[in-house]
Structures are given as structure tokens and as C-alpha cells.
């Protein structure tokens, strides 16, 4: 890619986001990180083949996310009755017992933001990959990056473990099919955030506009 070549052969000017210091950073080799000379915050990371890898991971993420929503995560068996719980049922049940605010919070952090983030990522990375340009790519990507902290699937995974242990002595807990895809999804999301190089997208924006 042209942008990639340009980016990693020249010294570039950067201003540290944390301490506002202006500095020049040398071209980075693959996998290297540039840090601020004053406060050691990360200025830039060069990821190999970031666009292709991130797109592949985002697509995998979408499939796993759909799987995680289709089948039960956990089932509880007590007194001859079995109850299933899916990703969505947590927010639905909270709404049903008249806790609309908590319900919305759980819905936003475990369904809406992860779904938006995966779909948006596929759209943005796919457009960049195919060379499409649209005025929406910039604002969408900016939105995705700034709402990243609100997708909390990995925290939800820890909560599943804690809830399973808590209920373990009261009733029989059966891990559902979705639990495995959910576990894989959390790993994929972590990989996605570590392979994504936002500069690739922004440089594409610069060359097309």
C-alpha cells in the first residue's frame, strides 16, 4: 500500500497526547513502538499487515457474536426445571423486573456497543481495503474508537464465571453452546484491538479526500 510505504520511510512529526510535547519520530520497523521522550506514553505502534488481519478478525468476531446470541450461555437445572440464559436475556429480565436503567446499561455494554463496533469495523476496514471512499468512514471510525471502552464483553465473561460458581452449590449449572463461542469472541476482540493500526485508516482518508 502506498500510504504504508510513505508512513514508514520518513521521519514524522508527532505531538504527544499526554504531555503536548512536539517531537519527531524515526521510521518504525514492524512491531516497534515509539514512545514520548518526556512522559513515555505511546506515540505510535507499527503493526504488520494490520488492515488484512483486523478485517479477518472483525469478520470472525461477527460470526462468533451471532453464535453467542443464538444459543444459551448457561443453563440452570433445579427441581426438574431447566432455565436457559442467553446474552440478551440478562437485559430482558432486568427490564421485566422493573429495573430499566440497569437493563439499558447491560444492553448497551454487552449487546449494542460490541455489535456496533464489529459491524462498523467491518464496514470501515472493508471500505479501506476495497478502496471505496465515503464521507462516513471518518466519523464512523472516530465514533468506534471513542466508544471502544463501553463494550465490556470480557468483563461479562468474568461475571459468567463468578455467577456460575455462586450458583454451583444451589443447582446444577450446565455450560451452553454459546459459552464456547463467547469465550472465543472475547479472545478475538482482544486480538483485534492489538492488531488494529488506526493510522492505516486515517492515511487512506487523507489520500482519498
Amino acid at each position, binding site marked *: 500500500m502506498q500510504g504504508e510505504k510513505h508512513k514508514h520511510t520518513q521521519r514524522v512529526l*508527532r505531538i504527544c497526547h499526554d504531555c503536548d510535547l512536539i517531537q519527531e519520530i524515526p521510521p518504525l520497523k514492524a512491531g516497534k513502538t515509539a514512545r514520548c521522550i518526556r512522559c513515555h506514553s505511546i506515540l505510535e505502534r507499527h503493526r504488520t499487515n494490520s488492515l488484512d488481519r483486523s478485517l479477518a478478525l472483525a469478520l470472525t468476531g461477527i460470526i462468533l457474536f451471532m453464535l453467542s446470541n443464538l444459543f444459551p450461555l448457561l443453563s440452570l437445572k433445579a427441581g426438574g426445571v431447566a432455565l436457559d440464559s442467553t446474552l440478551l436475556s440478562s437485559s430482558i429480565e432486568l427490564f421485566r423486573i422493573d429495573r430499566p436503567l440497569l437493563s439499558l446499561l447491560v444492553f448497551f455494554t454487552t449487546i449494542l456497543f460490541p455489535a456496533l463496533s464489529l459491524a462498523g469495523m467491518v464496514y470501515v476496514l472493508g471500505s479501506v481495503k476495497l478502496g471505496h471512499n465515503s464521507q462516513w468512514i471518518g466519523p464512523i471510525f472516530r465514533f468506534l474508537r471513542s466508544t471502544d471502552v463501553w463494550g465490556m464483553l470480557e468483563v461479562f465473561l468474568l461475571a459468567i464465571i463468578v455467577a456460575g460458581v455462586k450458583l454451583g452449590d444451589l443447582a446444577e449449572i450446565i455450560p451452553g453452546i454459546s459459552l464456547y463461542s463467547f469465550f472465543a469472541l472475547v479472545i478475538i476482540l482482544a486480538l483485534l484491538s492489538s492488531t488494529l493500526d488506526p493510522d492505516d485508516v486515517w492515511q487512506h482518508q487523507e489520500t482519498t479526500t
Partner: protein
Amino acid sequence: MSTLYKTGLEEGLLCCPHCNLISRLPEQKNTAPKTRAPNNRQPPSIICPRCDALLHTRIPHSLAKTTALVLAATFMYIPANILPIMNVTYLGSGQTDTIMGGIIHLFMEGMWPLALIVFVASIVVPLLKLLVMGGLLLSVKFGSCWRPAQRTHLFHITEFIGRWSMVDIFVLAILVALVQFGNIASVDAGLGALSFAAVVILTMFAAHTFDPRLIWDAMDKKNLHKQKDTTHG
């Protein structure tokens, strides 16, 4: 040494926090190069030509906004710990659990590794976050020059771990969804859960409105004074 260091503010350059593009602030009349944006006025802003984000030299009213959010979170922290976060009804007899009560339960059942994780996520992290943010706000307010790199690092740690406090809310959500056996057993959310969720959300917003560059502004001011002294002397 200090003359080598130039900040974006001194040079009138702005860096987009989203796409890293550097833009120049339009020249302003009647502003001497050394004066900083006064507190009572909105700092100058432009729109990033590459990603259309609104850029500021510093986040506007960062200190006031962050202080308000941290104070609100501190007030909510009290009901979050006193009020029950869940009511468990089992065979007609009700039992309420506060956050600490749930942890003690886990510990009593011999699940001490999990008890420790929940203790750190729900008690230690929110408390540390409030203390750290409060400390950072005070240090910026009084222009402290004490270990700015460590303070910046501390800020990023609190920003990163804050979301893990949500684990208790999610445990509650899962239990509510799973344990619905009519009269035999059911779980209901208490008011403490709402307060606790408010603490987590408010501190996450506080981390968002806090501008770490303010930590370094005190250093730059000091360096500027030093330079003045050497040129005058």
C-alpha cells in the same frame, strides 16, 4: 535543556486526538506568544481537516467537569456500599446481599480466588479510582510538579481498570436471568446496584473529561519562569 522542548500550545499547533493529524491554530490578535488560554475563556478550537473532530488545545473546562463527576461518584459510592445490590428469595425466605456481603459469602464457601477478584474489582478499584482522580485533580489545581510521568501513568491505569468494576452488575444481571423459579427461588436487583452502576459510569466519564496535558502544563510554566530568570540575570 528546556529550550529544546516545545509544546503544541507554545507553537500554536494542535494534534487531533483521534487521527494524530497536526493542524495550526489560526493566528489570534492581541495575544502575546507567552500567555496561556485564560481559565475563564473557552480555549480556541478548530475542526480537524482529516476526520472532522472538534479540536481544542486543552479539553474545555476539564478540571471543573472532572471535579463535578468525581464528587458525584463519591456521593454515590456511599449508597452503593450500604444498600443491598440484590435480594435473593429462596423458599419464601428473603435474604439481601450488599457488595461486601456477596464477597464474604464467596469467601466462606472456600472460593477465595474468586472472592479476591470480586473484592478487587468492586471494592478496591472504585475506591482507588476515586482517590487517584481526586489526588490528580488537586495536584493539577495547585500546579504540582511532583513526578508528572508517574502521575500520567497512574491516570492511564485508572482509566483502563475502571470498566472491570462492572463485573458485579453483570453477575447480578446473569443471576436475575437464570434464577426465576417463581415461588421457589428468585433474585431481584436492589437500589445499591443502581448506585454502584452510577459510580462506575461517572468515574469512567471523569476519566474521559480529564486532560492529562494539564499535569504537564505546570512543568512547562516552571520551565518558562526559569528561562525568563536566566535571560534577565
